C-alpha cells in the first residue's frame, strides 16, 4: 500500500494508530489515583512528543543513514520557530504560511551550513556544525537584537504584540495560532469515562497528522535508491567514489532534508505556542536530538520517535517527582527504611532527572547498541522461542553498525 511493502505498511499503520490514539494510551491511570502523575496524555506534552519525534526522524535521515553526526541541528529548529513567529506578526495567526516559511527558511539555512560543513567529515564535520549552531545562537541572542534592527528580540524572545501588522488578520479569527479559524490551543473533545479523563487537542492533531506524513516520507526515503546511496556513504565513501558516485551532493541532500524536518518541528513549536527564543538553538538542544536518535536506535525507522518520546517523558514526568511523592511510595516501610530509600533515590528525581536519563542512556548504549529498537527486537525474539537463528540481514533491513557513530 502507498508504495510500501507489507512490513513497512504495517509499521506505518501501527505508528499512525499509536499517534492518533495517544490521548487514550498516554492516560492509563485514573485521574484521582496516585499514579496519575505518570499520565502523559495532556496536550502540551503530547505536542512535544510528536514535534520532537519529527525533529528526530529528520535527524536520523542524516545521522542514521550517512553517519554524519551533526551537533548543530537545533539551529534549524530555532530558525524555523523565528520564521513562524514572523509570519504570525506580519501576516496572520494562520499556521499554514507560518509552517511553510519555517520549512523554507530552514532549508535555505541548511544548504548554506551543510555546504560548508560537509567539506569535512567525522569529528571535524561535527565541530563545524556545532560552531555554526553556536554562531546562530549568538546571532539570535544578541547580535540580531538591537533597537535599529530587531529580528529576534534577544533574551525576551520573539512574540506577537498588539501593534504588529498582521495584515491578513480580521475580526472573527481567534487571537492565537489557528488553522483557518480552529484555534490550536483549544480542545475539541474532553471525554470522562468513570475515573478516567482524556483531552483531545486541535494542535496535537495537527502535529500528529504531520508526523504521520513525514514518517511515511522517511520510510520512502529509506527504501529508495537515494536512501541506499546514503547508507553507502556511511559504509565506504572510498568505494563509492571509485564506483562513479559523488558522495557530496548525496550527503548535502540528506543534510538539507533533515534541516527541513527540524524547521518543520520549529514551526510547529511556534504554532503551538507563538513564541521563539534563542535557547532553542543552544548546543544542548542539538545534543538532545542526538541522544534521542541513538537512544531509540539510529538508522532504524521507528527508533528516533521512540527515543524522542522516551526523553520528553523523562524530562516532563520524572522531573516532577519530588521527595513527598517518594515518601508516599515508601510509606509502607518502617520509618528508617523509608527515609533511607528516599535519601538514595533523591538525586535521581526532580531536578536530578538528567542523572537518571544519563544512566539509562549509558546502559542502552553499552548493552543495546541498536537502541530501544534492538531491545524490542530481542524481546520479540525471546517470545518467538529464541531458537530461530538470528542470521545477518536476512530481511534486507538496515542494521546499523554498533560501534562508531561518526563517519570516517
Amino acid at each position, binding site marked *: 500500500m502507498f508504495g510500501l511493502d507489507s512490513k513497512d505498511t504495517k509499521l506505518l499503520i501501527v505508528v499512525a494508530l499509536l499517534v492518533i490514539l495517544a490521548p487514550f494510551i498516554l492516560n492509563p491511570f485514573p485521574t484521582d489515583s496516585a499514579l496519575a502523575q505518570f499520565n502523559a496524555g495532556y496536550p502540551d506534552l503530547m505536542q512535544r512528543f510528536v514535534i520532537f519525534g519529527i525533529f528526530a526522524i529528520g535527524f536520523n535521515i542524516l545521522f542514521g543513514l550517512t553517519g554524519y553526526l551533526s551537533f548543530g541541528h537545533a539551529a534549524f529548529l530555532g530558525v524555523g520557530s523565528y520564521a513562524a513567529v514572523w509570519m504570525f506578526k506580519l501576516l496572520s495567526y494562520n499556521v499554514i504560511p507560518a509552517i511553510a516559511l519555517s520549512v523554507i527558511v530552514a532549508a535555505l539555512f541548511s544548504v548554506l551550513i551543510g555546504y560548508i560543513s560537509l567539506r569535512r567529515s567525522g569529528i571535524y564535520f561535527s565541530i563545524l556544525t556545532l560552531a555554526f549552531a553556536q554562531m546562530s545562537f549568538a546571532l539570535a541572542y544578541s547580535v540580531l537584537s538591537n533597537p535599529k534592527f530587531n529580528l529576534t528580540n534577544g533574551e525576551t524572545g520573539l512574540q506577537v504584540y498588539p501593534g504588529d501588522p498582521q495584515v491578513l488578520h480580521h475580526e472573527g479569527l481567534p487571537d492565537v495560532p489557528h488553522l483557518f479559524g480552529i484555534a490550536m490551543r483549544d480542545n475539541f473533545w474532553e471525554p470522562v469515562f468513570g475515573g478516567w479523563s482524556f483531552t483531545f487537542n486541535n494542535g496535537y492533531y495537527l502535529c500528529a497528522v504531520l508526523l504521520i506524513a513525514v514518517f511515511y516520507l522517511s520510510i520512502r526515503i529509506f527504501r529508495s*535508491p537515494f536512501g541506499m546511496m546514503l547508507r553507502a556513504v556511511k559504509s565506504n565513501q572510498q*568505494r563509492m567514489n571509485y564506483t562513479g558516485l559523488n558522495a557530496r551532493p548525496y550527503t548535502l541532500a540528506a543534510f538539507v532534508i533533515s534541516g527541513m524536518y527540524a524547521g518543520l518541528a520549529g514551526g510547529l513549536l511556534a504554532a503551538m505556542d507563538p513564541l521563539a527564543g534563542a535557547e532553542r538553538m543552544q548546543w544542548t538542544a542539538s545534543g538532545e536530538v542526538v541522544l534521542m536518535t541513538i537512544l531509540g536506535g539510529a538508522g532504524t525507522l521507528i527508533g528516533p520517535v521512540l527515543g524522542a518520546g522516551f526523553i520528553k517523558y523523562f524530562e516532563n514526568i520524572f522531573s516532577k517527582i519530588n521527595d513527598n511523592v517518594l515518601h508516599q511510595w515508601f510509606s509502607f516501610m518502617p520509618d528508617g527504611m523509608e527515609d533511607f530509600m528516599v535519601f538514595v533515590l533523591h538525586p535521581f528525581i526532580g531536578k536530578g532527572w538528567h542523572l537518571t536519563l544519563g544512566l539509562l542512556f549509558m546502559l542502552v548504549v553499552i548493552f543495546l547498541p541498536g537502541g530501544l529498537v534492538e531491545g524490542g527486537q530481542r524481546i520479540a525474539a525471546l517470545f518467538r522461542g529464541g531458537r530461530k537463528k538470528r542470521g545477518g540481514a536476512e530481511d*534486507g533491513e538496515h542494521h546499523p553498525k554498533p560501534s562508531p557513530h561518526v563517519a570516517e
Partner: protein
Amino acid sequence: MGILEVKNVNKRFGGLQALGNVNLSVQENTVHAIIGPNGAGKSTLLNCLVGKLIPDTGSVMFDGQSVLGRHPYEINQMGISRVFQTPEIFGDLTVMENMMIPCFAKRDGAFEMNALSAVGRQKDIIERAEHVLEDMKMLDKRNMHSASLSRGDKRRLEIAMCLSQEPRLLLLDEPTAGMARADTNNTIDLLKQIKEERDITIAIIEHDMHVVFSLAERITVLAQGTPLVEDTPDKIKGHPKVREAYLGESA
C-alpha cells in the same frame, strides 16, 4: 595509440621515488599485466590512474582524454573501474545491495535524487546485479551481509561490482590474493569469458604467476618505480633482467 597512455610519470613520497619516469601504453582489448617485487610502485601507479594520487610530473591519458585533476568518480564515469589490493566493499550492506550500487552509478550517473521510488521496483538494476552475481557463482550469497563474507568472496564481490559497470578499462590490483585455488581458477575463467564476450581492456597487477601467464597478453615489469621491460609473456619468462629483479626472488 593505446587506450591508456602513461607518459613520464614521476611520484615522490618525501625522499622516496615511488615512480620514476614511468611510460606505459595499454592497447585496447588486451590484458596487460604489471608485475614486480613488493614496493615496486605498482599500486602507486594504479592510484595515479584513478585519481587517488596526482603524479608530480607526466601525463595520463585515457581514450585521448587526460584523467589528471579529475575526481575519482569522474574517472570511473569515463569508463575505468578498479579493484583494490585490500577489498573495498560496502561492508554494512548486503551482497545484493553492493551489486546494485554500481549498477545505479552506471545507469543514473554520479548523482541522482531518486528518493521516492522503491529499490525493489528497479527491475533492470536487480536483473543486471543478479546476472553478474550468477556469473560470479555468488547468487546464493545475495542476502548475506557483505562484511561476513570470506576474504576471497569479498574480492570476488568487488570484481563483480566492477564488472557490472561494464567498464572499458578494468584495473585489478592482486585480484586473486587470499582466494582459494578453485576460486582463483574460477576468476581466471570468468575474466577470460568476459574478455571473449565483449570489448574490455584489463590491466592486472598480480604476484601469482599462474594467473599472470593464464591471462596476460603483454607484461610490464616494474622495479623500484621504473619499468624494466615490456614484452609478451613468453619473452618475459626468459628475460635475464626479469629473473634477476623479480622471478629470481620467488622462483
